[in-house]
């Protein structure tokens, strides 16, 4: 997994509630054989493009300086809906490193941590203020997300702390893979299974 330590850059205020994973990536893009590396161009296609395929200039994701933003600011429940991990791969391919929202869809949240994308939960008032600071000085404003110190630094230099599970912080900082860690507990797993076969034999087909 990719490591995540710190990101500094433009933060795009995509200030909607309930940004669902269908909106982030359409399902047919996951059926087409473009592979997980090829999903970036299709990220948010339903709002970035008009039905005729041309870019919608009203969509903030198409506007300067937000086009290259590595940070998304959003409202409640970002990543709700479908479990498709393609939503995270699409964000990654689109250049997104971290999403800041009050809270996230549970499955999306887990999927982010599997791919080195950092979901940062902050109170909505803080996010609204970050968005205001971004739009107040377009072109110059930058946001920093620092995982080591668990802080977001706003364009005006305000330091906003955020919380993250220590286990996940450690895994992200070091790019650790869950499977390798679980494999080190193989003996424990096998002992549990052996006991369970006696206790609940009907489960074991």
């Amino acid at each position: 997994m990719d490591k995540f330590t710190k990101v500094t850059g433009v933060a795009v205020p995509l200030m909607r509630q309930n940004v669902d994973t269908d909106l982030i990536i359409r399902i047919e893009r996951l059926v087409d054989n473009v592979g997980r590396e090829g999903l970036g161009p299709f990220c948010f296609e339903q709002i970035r493009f008009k039905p005729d395929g041309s870019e919608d200039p009203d969509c903030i994701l198409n506007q300067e300086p937000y086009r290259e933003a590595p940070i998304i600011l959003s409202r409640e429940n970002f990543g709700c809906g479908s479990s498709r991990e393609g939503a995270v791969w699409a964000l990654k391919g689109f250049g997104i490193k971290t999403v800041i929202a009050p809270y996230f869809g549970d499955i999306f949240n887990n999927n982010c941590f599997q791919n080195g994308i950092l979901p940062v939960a902050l109170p909505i008032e803080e996010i609204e203020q970050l968005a205001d600071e971004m739009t107040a000085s377009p072109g110059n404003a930058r946001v920093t997300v620092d995982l080591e110190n668990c802080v977001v630094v706003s364009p005006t230099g305000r330091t906003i702390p955020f919380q993250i599970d220590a286990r996940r912080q450690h895994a992200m900082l070091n790019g650790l893979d869950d499977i390798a860690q679980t494999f080190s507990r193989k003996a424990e797993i096998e002992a549990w299974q052996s006991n369970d076969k006696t206790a609940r034999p009907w489960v074991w087909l």
Partner: protein
Amino acid sequence: MSKTLFDKIWDSHVISDLGNGFVLLHIDRLLLHDMSGGKALKEAIEKGYAPSQPRLIYGTPDHTMSTQPGRTEKTFAPGESLILSMRETTRAYGIKLFDLGQDGQGIVHVMGPEQGLTLPGTTLVCGDSHTSTHGGMGALAFGIGASELVHTIATQTMVQRKPKRFRASFEGALQPGVTAKDMILHLIGDVGTAAGTGYAVEYAGSAVRALPVEARLTLCNLTIEMGARTGMVAPDDTTYEYLDGRDYAPKGAMWDRAVAHWRTLPSDPDAEFDREHTIDMANVAPQITWGTSPEHVIAVDRAIPDPSTGPEEKRAAWAAALKYQGLEPGRPIEGTQVDWVFIGSCTNSRISDLRAAAAIARGRHKADHVTAWVVPGSVRIKREAEAEGLDKVFLDAGFEWREPGCSMCLASNGERVPPGKRSVSTSNRNFVGRQGPGARTHLASPAMAAAAAIKGAIADVRKL
């Protein structure tokens, strides 16, 4: 110490405590479908992780298969490579695949309970957010992403953090025309689409106890639409009657032993929940969604909401939803013209759903301007319906009778509601573009969907 149903299943599956609130949890059943199943198996194998417990893994194609009568894996060409890879990888490790055209094939969340693979007290995962469906059997079931899928294939475990507990109680008798679909839509409308985020939900109360298993599966199916990954109903005699004799359910003395264990699972009377919400069924009428989130739901006899009178933080979302849906606030939703009707999906494609829709369609005909599809949830349901003559009822009423699969619920097999067209659907999501780019979706029960097809407009099933 008193425990909830959820705690009993969770605690008994903890292999080790990983600290910081995380545990390593044993997974008793892993279900695979064609969108992610073959790919995940391939990825695991390429990384050097062969499936550790292939006999606890089962698969079936549903997402990318055409549901056109007479379909093969070639009918929807983009799905062919997915099913071919699923066949190749499952065969290599002896993983049972209920393949296209075979007995047992169907929507993965229909297949599990139908086969008796989904058992009370088990942990079950699948790479699909509607895995919560299996909770209707008293299982702890939740959807996972592709990476977690590879982890489960490789280790038959998952690294998880324990969620909080949410009890949603439905009390009293169901009013005429009201189904499990209306119960869960009403709940989501009440508490909102994120109320369950970070929680495991238990559905309880006299109305839930009175529901047959298929309705409990519908209830649990939409749990993810209120933000929770898992929803469950305590197993009881209704569960055991449903399960007894199914292909993979325990038999004989083993059955008796299993039932004795399952009887210990329901929440202790004084078990505590972190959040409680109670709904009086006397206040629940047939529901229909009006917007682009499952929480945008009203009783069918109500008016389309006006954003200017809604909660301040939701006004912008409501206005955007109405614009997308092409609806005017303040008008009755009943009578809104529809172009499509979709009866199917892991929410509402079981035999009882088809019977309810057929009861409305029988002896009537769909409106000329409506295209109405019925997509049974599995090969077995299709056969059972045909044995009862339900296919004939639908065909006589001008509906299409199709092959089992996910179909137009998420349009991943090319079956879409056309842009700008309005559909009453028995599925689970009314998101922007969910049923196809520009498609407008209204979620409702199977009988409400059939009524819309007959009337050519959103209709109150109680008036038919």
